[in-house]
């Protein structure tokens, strides 16, 4: 997705062109889905739908069309965390994280994600997929960075074998 190509579509959509909205939906749906899935896991499609609803309801208020992706990303992360928390049945315990070297990690990254809280999953997504610093990611989620940093370090180390595979 090229932000320079999306900005004119945003302006057209804000003027009421629903075909431009349709094109924006085509561009944003995969992006929002990629952010929501690792955070909301099994509820990823619902989270992506909710995020897209918020995005299209609020699009007319977006003042800087060039900032579409960052704006959509923030909404997607927040909706995914909200839905994951609303529907969570088993409290996440980071203490249960497998140690680095556990062969299980090589087979099921989703299982590792399930062992993290939605907020921690969100920080991992922002940090490692979207290139945020931990401080920026924690700020976006209104979480104290100091309290999560060490745990995330361990979680990320657990992923390294899978990522480098």
């Amino acid at each position, binding site marked *: 997705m090229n932000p320079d190509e999306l900005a004119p579509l945003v302006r057209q959509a804000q003027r009421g062109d*629903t*075909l431009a909205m*349709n094109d924006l*939906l085509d561009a944003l*749906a*995969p992006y929002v889905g990629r952010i929501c*899935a690792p955070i909301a896991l099994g509820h*990823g499609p619902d989270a992506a739908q909710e995020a897209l609803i918020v995005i299209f309801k609020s699009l007319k208020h977006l003042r800087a069309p060039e900032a579409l992706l960052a704006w959509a990303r923030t909404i997607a992360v927040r909706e995914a965390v909200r839905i994951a928390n609303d529907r969570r049945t088993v409290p996440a315990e980071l203490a249960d994280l497998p140690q680095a070297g556990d062969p299980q990690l090589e087979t099921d*990254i989703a299982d590792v994600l399930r062992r993290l809280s939605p907020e921690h999953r969100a920080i991992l997504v922002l940090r490692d997929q979207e290139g945020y610093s931990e401080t920026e990611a924690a700020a976006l989620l209104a979480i104290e960075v100091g309290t999560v940093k060490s745990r995330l370090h361990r979680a990320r180390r657990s992923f390294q074998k899978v990522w480098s595979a």
Partner: protein
Amino acid sequence: MNQHWPVAEPDAVARLHALAAGVRGASVTEGVVDAPYARVWAHLADLEKGFGDVEPDMRRFTVLSNENGRLEALAVSRYGMRARLRGTLRPGWCWLQSRFLLIGVAAAPDGPERTRVAFTGGVRVPGRAALIPLGVKQSGRRSLRLLQRRMQG
């Protein structure tokens, strides 16, 4: 991006809810039809014949051009009003607008024998992402009912 991360994409029906959320006054009618997706969509995507079955206000629908799913069509209502529609038609998805009209239809498989279908649209506030809020819910419900009846026949 790593290929092992889970991904999720909302299906066409979920997308229709999202897009309609940006259209003031729009209402989405969603339901399940007891027929396989391929059969349901073949009927709906036949805009010149099948679509008129579920949208009885439409007297005639003529596709003027269709290039890679980018469609131009002429619709004539039973009251004689004409609308030149432009938009997208692809498997599971139809989104068309004219200055005065908006049509949105989506379908997604619900198992091998059933199909989730959603309708939205109505009379557009000229040039705006807004519908005149008259009869939009009734129209969607009627289209769904007619489609279900048609698929049973």
